[in-house]
């Protein structure tokens, strides 16, 4: 074997796959933190991402919640955007062509106020070229109907999974809420109704009070807590889900470094998404990808898939 070949061997394989879709590396953004029009393309090269995950797309435009919509918390943040979005047609006309231009996989996050809206969006997107997967948001704590109502009851989660499964040929990822007693039960509900993958965790329902003004800090009252603060809970839930179902898992929740990402993958995730830290460090997705590579080199691991779920 020549020296040249050995040098090639040193560069570890980062490719991972979920439900038959191959990702050049396991690092993607979490829905909602990255815009839909390449907002961060001036900071990082989006073609280097494993995938781009869109903001939540509904059938019609959603206005979202009042402001303030965001608040800082210790090592984290709360948000209550309320899934503001211009609706699926504007997404297809305007955003999708831009996103496709970056040349990596596209996962479209979909949301609905009712089973019917979930069904309509998934049907609308079912035949669209350039969309690799759908991620179903059944866990947004900031919309009154739909969202978390479906994500904290295994029966309702089964129902929404089944309904969407019938309407689309795309692989579907169910995005799970951490606001539950048993994440394993939720993952099983998704699996039993034909989901291709689960992603977790979405945000924790949380509250901040402006004590001087004696009112909620966020206009919505509650908001979703995310960031490094809750990373250790996310790792535990990924571990529990991985031991409950055979589905591939996209792990997320406060990832701030390659080490955090590796932790998620050792707990059972086949890929990872970075959310809140995008705001803190706009280059984070590429930083995490490079740190994963460096860790693998350091440890003499040739293929990222070797470490998935080793715990």
């Amino acid at each position, binding site marked *: 074997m020549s020296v040249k070949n050995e040098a090639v061997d040193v560069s570890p394989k980062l490719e991972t796959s979920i439900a038959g879709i191959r990702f050049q590396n396991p690092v993607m953004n979490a829905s909602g*933190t990255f815009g839909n029009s390449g907002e961060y393309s*001036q900071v990082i090269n989006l073609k280097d991402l494993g995938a781009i995950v869109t903001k939540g797309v509904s059938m019609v435009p959603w206005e979202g919640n009042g*402001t303030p*919509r965001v608040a*800082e918390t210790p*090592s984290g943040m709360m948000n209550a955007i309320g899934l*503001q979005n211009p609706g699926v047609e504007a997404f297809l006309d305007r955003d999708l062509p831009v996103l496709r231009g970056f040349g990596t996989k596209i996962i479209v996050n979909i949301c609905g106020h009712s089973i019917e809206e979930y069904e309509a969006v998934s049907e609308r997107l079912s035949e669209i070229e350039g969309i690799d997967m759908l991620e179903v948001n059944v866990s947004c704590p900031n919309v009154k109907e739909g969202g978390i109502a479906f994500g904290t009851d295994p029966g309702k989660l089964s129902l929404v999974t089944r309904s969407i499964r019938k309407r689309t040929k795309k692989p579907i990822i169910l995005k799970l809420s951490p606001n539950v007693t048993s994440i394993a039960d939720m993952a099983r509900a998704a699996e039993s109704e034909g989901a291709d993958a689960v992603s977790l965790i979405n945000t924790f329902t949380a509250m901040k009070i402006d004590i001087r003004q004696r009112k909620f800090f966020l206009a919505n009252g509650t908001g979703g807590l995310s960031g490094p603060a809750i990373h250790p809970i996310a790792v535990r839930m990924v571990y529990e889900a991985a031991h409950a179902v055979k589905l591939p898992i996209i792990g997320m929740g406060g990832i701030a470094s390659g080490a955090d990402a590796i932790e998620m993958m050792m707990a059972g995730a086949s890929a990872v998404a970075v959310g809140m830290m995008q705001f*803190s460090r706009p280059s984070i997705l590429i930083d995490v990808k490079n740190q994963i590579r460096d860790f693998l080199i350091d440890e003499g691991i040739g293929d990222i898939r070797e470490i998935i779920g080793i715990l």
Partner: protein
Amino acid sequence: MFYGQMEIVSSESIRKNIQLMVLAPLESKMEGAVKEAGPGQFAMLHSPDDSRLLPRPISIYDITKEGFLAFIFALKGEGTRRLSELMPGSRLYVTAPLGNGFPLEEAKEKKRITVIGGGLGVPPMYFLSKALINSGSCSAEVPKKNLDIVLGYRSESELILEKEFEGLKSPDSLPDKEENGTQFFLHFASDDGSFGSKGNVLDLIRYKGIESDIIFACGPKPMLRGIQAVAQEKGIPAYLSLEERMACGVGACLGCVVKTRSVNEHSLVKNVRVCKDGPVFLSSEVEL
């Protein structure tokens, strides 16, 4: 928009809980950030404190002769307090420039320009005033113009930048007035009358009979609402710089929206993003 490291050249308290911080580019791309930055734009200062992870949006107060970005900000909470404690020589990640900034080109054809700053809205109006005086505000059709700068404070104890604005008059900081063609007048108001006219900026404008063809303003919401009403009444454009709690600063998260009067063509709902569509909006477009 650039994201990179800058170095704190100086950081000082210019008044109780008000910090002046000057940042120099450390990476060449950040020289690009300085070059692109215009009045009314802002930067995200990324704190090195790992417990306070959201960057702080701070409007650009000035670009120094050395090509450094200068910021003035209030210590409103722990995040800004920690930023203020960083020593000169420390490094900081910065995203800049962000937002649309004030539309200088809209002033080109206007004879009577009014710049209004209230309280912590004063610093960005310094950068704007300098730009209006130095360049970009003249055209063949309007060779001579008046610039009224109206600054309001709660009281003398909360004055900021009054000397710097006075300094705009000094000949070494701007080209010859005649050649430039812009004559400017500086007015001060304070709620308690301890400095300048007693009352708010709108009282002063009414009292002095200042007439405008265009208004640029930054300050507290009640002041902006008053200007919005005046602009509507007189049928003149008023460009207002708004504030909202932000997370990303680049238009990605939709954290910092304000309501619009009609459906916005980008959002398809009655919301615009302060960070990306703003922070400067035509007063007739937004609900305040």
